[in-house]
Every structure is written in structure tokens, then in C-alpha cells.
């Protein structure tokens, strides 16, 4: 697995041709809503193929 493969897969998933150039100011103050974080954690647990291990 290479860095290029991760980037390629990410671009494919988001239907982008190239990685967006984002400044620090773009993400400053950006908070991840609880429902998104919960979805991310659920996917993470599923990808590990195991039961939740607490925090």
C-alpha cells in the first residue's frame, strides 16, 4: 500500500481529479458533529472486525 493508492482511492470516492488545497484558515474552528464522529467510530470498529473495546 502506497501513499499514492490512498490518495487515488480518496479522490475516487469524492469524485475529484486532484487533492483540494486547503488553508489552515479553512479548517480553523471547524468542529466535527457528534453524529459524524459516531458514524466514523462505527465504521472504524466494523473495519477492525471486532466488538467495541470501550474508549
Amino acid at each position, binding site marked *: *500500500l502506497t501513499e499514492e493508492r490512498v490518495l487515488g482511492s480518496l479522490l475516487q470516492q469524492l469524485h475529484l481529479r486532484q487533492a483540494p488545497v486547503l488553508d489552515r484558515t479553512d479548517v480553523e474552528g471547524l468542529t466535527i458533529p457528534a453524529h459524524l464522529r459516531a458514524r466514523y467510530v462505527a465504521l472504524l470498529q466494523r473495519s477492525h472486525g471486532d466488538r467495541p473495546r470501550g474508549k
Partner: protein
Amino acid sequence: RFSQNFREVAGRFLVSEVSTHLLVFGMEQRLPPNSELVQAVLRLFQQPLPRAALRRLERSARAQVTIEWLRVRDDGSNRTSLIDSRLVSVHESGWKAFDVTEAVNFWQQLSRPRQPLLLQVSVQSEHLGPGASGAHRLVRFAAQGTAGAARGEPQLELHTLDLKDYGAQGNCDPEAPVTKDTRCCRQEMYLDLQGMKWAENWVLEPPGFLAYECVGSCLQPPKPLTFQWTFLGPRQCIASETASLPMIVTIKEGGRTRPQVVSLPNMRVQKCSCASDGAPVPRGLEP
């Protein structure tokens, strides 16, 4: 037929000249534990035809022999899966081989206790339609228990490799350096996303992840086996099971940014195995 919403379409019966045989193989304990099925071959002995019958037939007369795996489902219904099909000359006799690896792969996926392996052999005319010859009806395979068929009864050959020698070893020993002699194993490999320029301010989670990689080599089958399966390439150490990687990324739309969850498939190696290039990927059993 009594509804005006339907147009009645008459079907025409073309031909139904199929002779079908069901072969039953008790399979429990036939496949050694921790072994890989490389190939399963069904051998059927085609019996010679009487000379008088041969004289009446065209020299090119052939029959279509089809092998299907028959599965009896829990509700008692039957389901068949096409496994192999080939044309055989009606004039020839002797052993005919069919590749039934997929049927055994399907059978292995059944929940225990597993039913015997059921293979349905049907012999059909090469061409369907009114002009079809009936030559296929003369094709006979030796059956178990028939007189004179003791040596010609159906056989199932199972070719397996012992995974103790020919398989991967799980995770690599982190203490031992990987050399060309290292047996195929899964090695930890951390991908640091924070250190990648393109991911800056774009990938919010995770900062990096354990991707793993498959390293090392695989023991090759002995020469007689490779000669038998010429279509197979050398056994290589490959990722046989992978998992997806979820990410939280920043999406910029119309000057505004928002986080989004995405899942990248096949990013994390779960299991490494030794596999031959060219070997068919076993299909999953349908419900």
C-alpha cells in the same frame, strides 16, 4: 389465461431429451484439516457403444455433458449451480474429466452438519430443436454397482496442499528481519497521513493508520503437481482479506467547509495467504 391484461403466449415444446444422473459423494473428513483445495476432478467412465449402434451414427455425433452442484436448502427446495459443461464424442469411450473444484468450494461453505456432495450429471443433445439427433441418448457412464463397472465407477479426485507447509504463517515476527527465506507473513506498516503534504487540512481523521503488508515467500508445489496444473502460476504471498478505512475529510463547497465521513475500500490488510496466480477466486455461496 382468464385475465385481459395478459396476452397468452403459446410455448412450443422443442426437445426434452435429457438423461440425468445424480452422484452422491460422502465428503466429511475427506478434506484434511488446514488444507487448501487446489482442484477437484470428477472422472466419469464413458462406456463403449455396441458396434451395430456405432455404424448407424455420424462420426461427428456429440453430446453435451453438464455437471451441476445440487444443494438441498433448509426449506427442502433444491437449487442447482452450473459447474462444468463440455461436449463429448458419442463414438469415444474411456475416462472423461470434469473440473468440479467450484462445487467442492460451495460444499465447504455449507453449515455443519453438511449434506453429502450432490453432483447432477445431465447428457443433452448438442443441438436443440426438431432436427436434433438422438445420439446423446447412447452416451452411458459407468455407474456404481453396475455389472462390469467396478473399475469404471465415478471418481472424485481431490488435490489439496497442506497449509502447514504451503500456507502463510500469520503475523511476522517483529524481532526477525525479513529475508527472502521468510515465510509469507503480515508485517506491520504504519502510514503517517500527517506527514503527507496533500493530506494537510484535508484529512481530519485518522492522523495515520496501520495498513500492514504481505511480505516473504511461499513454498512452491512439487514439480509433478505443477506439471498437472500448467495453468497455475507460482504461489505468491498476497493480501487475501482486506478491510476498509474510514476517514473524516474536509469538503469545501461554495467557500464554506464541512467535515464528511468516507470509507476507502481494501486499505488495511487483514490476512496474507499464499495463492497461485491464475487460480480461480472461489465464489461465495448464495442463500
